[in-house]
């Protein structure tokens, strides 16, 4: 921002210039009955208004094995601004020069190939809206009341328009051998993060993405290149992608055995629970917001499903006793955030607000009780329960037991 710009008042030699120019230009723009200052000059890379303070929240800001959550309550529409996309990395965010970055594809292939970024950008491209959700999202929601705000309860999910190459096209280039059944992806982070993807899935809609929301993928999301396995738990969309090995079996990497497996009451654990089931959450009104006075509010939220498109979202203002269909607003892409909204008149009383998503496979978002009944208390991952917010008579909104 050009703090040094001479103000018009100073330029015209008017009194009071010092006081006026200490305000940001935007704060003065609407002043009437006074001489109006010119605004800022163009900038090389725009930033949000200084009056906005949307931020990611990190559970361990100084750690390299950490994560940060998207402020979902601040978002409009279905796209997460790239700078607010959630992060999860195990060994920090590497700084990678795209000119020296290479993607090697080898293993059970007819001809191993090494791709430069230029090679990949030259290939046929696709741009698709997809959410990414960490399967550890909503881990605090195994307790009835869950987290106090939607950034903490659901913020390990974000949605971008991703641009890149279909992995199927790349696998065509190398020629996959008949005995292959999996691919193993590896990142260029310090810990060489690695995950296995079933070949069938890899040949479906999996992308190698270099673009995010119209610009290069952000460093935190894998710059210059990431795997993107739509609809699946975020950890499988290996960032900083450097190598793909076509294989006869999964590698049984640490992050598909020790982690990201779901322990059931009988001591067995589900493995390769890749797909993220349908989920929705009300982002407004939501925890830690305050309704200033009774009257009209639009209940707004986000819904998504790793199995396809969202076909229906219902909203309840009475803790699930009655439900009404919300309007699905805006684009409805498969495996992407979908907006819903529902008009509501707050009467000033206590209300429990809830939303429930259904996807085009007919799957209905479950209650916490149904999840606990099916899985017990030790699965950690894949919590897609119906979330409730309590609107109090004071107008305060808090987390609530459904």
């Amino acid at each position, binding site marked *: 921002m050009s703090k040094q710009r001479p103000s018009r008042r100073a330029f015209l030699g008017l009194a009071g210039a010092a006081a006026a120019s200490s305000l940001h230009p935007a704060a003065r723009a609407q002043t009437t009955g006074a001489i109006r200052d010119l605004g800022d000059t163009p900038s090389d890379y725009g930033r949000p208004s200084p009056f906005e303070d949307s931020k990611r929240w990190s559970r361990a800001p100084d750690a390299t094995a950490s994560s940060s959550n998207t402020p979902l309550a601040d978002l409009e529409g279905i796209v997460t601004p790239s700078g607010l996309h959630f992060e999860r990395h195990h060994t920090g965010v590497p700084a990678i020069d795209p000119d020296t970055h290479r993607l090697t594809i080898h293993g059970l292939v007819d001809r191993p*190939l*090494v*791709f430069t970024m230029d090679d990949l950008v030259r290939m*046929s491209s696709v741009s698709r809206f997809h959410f990414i959700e960490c399967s550890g999202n909503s881990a605090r929601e195994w307790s009835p009341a869950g987290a106090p705000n939607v950034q903490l309860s659901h913020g390990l999910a974000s949605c971008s328009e991703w641009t890149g190459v279909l992995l199927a096209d790349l696998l065509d280039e190398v020629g996959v051998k008949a005995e292959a059944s999996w691919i193993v992806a590896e990142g260029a982070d310090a*810990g060489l993060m690695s995950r296995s993807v079933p070949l069938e899935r890899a040949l479906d809609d999996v992308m190698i993405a270099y673009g995010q929301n119209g610009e290069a993928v952000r460093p935190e999301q894998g710059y210059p290149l990431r795997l993107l396995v739509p609809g699946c738990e975020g950890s499988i969309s290996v960032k900083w992608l450097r190598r793909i090995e076509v294989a006869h079996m999964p590698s*049984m990497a640490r992050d598909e055995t020790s982690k990201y497996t779901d*322990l059931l009451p009988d001591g067995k*654990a*589900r*493995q390769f629970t890749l797909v993220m089931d349908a989920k929705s959450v009300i982002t407004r009104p939501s925890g830690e917001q305050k309704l200033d006075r009774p009257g009209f509010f639009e209940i707004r939220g986000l819904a998504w499903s790793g199995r396809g498109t969202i076909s229906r979202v219902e909203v309840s203002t009475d803790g699930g006793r009655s439900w009404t269909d919300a309007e699905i607003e805006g684009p409805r892409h498969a495996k992407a955030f979908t907006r819903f909204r529902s008009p509501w008149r707050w009467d000033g009383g206590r209300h429990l607000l809830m939303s429930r998503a259904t996807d085009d496979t007919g799957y209905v978002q479950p209650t916490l009780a149904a999840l606990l009944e099916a899985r017990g208390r030790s699965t950690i991952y894949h919590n897609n329960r119906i979330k409730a917010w309590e609107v109090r008579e004071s107008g305060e909104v808090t987390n609530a037991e459904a």
Partner: protein
Amino acid sequence: MPRRSWRPTFALLFVSGVVFAAESERTGLGSEPTAEELGAAGYTVFPDGKGLPAGSGTVSEGRAVYQQFCAACHGRNAEGDEAAALVGGRDSLTSGRPRKTVESYWPYATTLWDYIRRSMPYESPGSLNDDEIYAVVAHLLHLGGVVGEDAVLDQESLPRVEMPNREGFVSDDRPDTD
């Protein structure tokens, strides 16, 4: 060359007057690596031992490696400290407080080798040589009561180690609600 039919596309494309079937056309982009370049690109270790390099390590060698490079974070006896416990927790998986460790939870010993090569020691991954990795794996598996005091691990013996929770995993059977 076996041609898989994963993307049956019979669309004919017309490009600059040339007609070709999309399915059989490659772009020719990318370059074929030399054997040396391919070797340098890295590798994956699989449960059947594929990928494991030559070399070997013993439990006692591993004890020294562990004390020098791992104990500060994972505890003297891998009981956990700043970083996770790596042993213990057997028979806890059905309890209300399951303790998932290499000993109690991990289905394959090869995963331990693969993970240490990739990611440990946390602050200097890649600093151990292959013998040291075999050794520290032997030490951890011995601490966990999985292999004996005299175990020697190498590319033959490591994939044959039977982990206690080898049969502990099932495939995804969701949807499981309603």
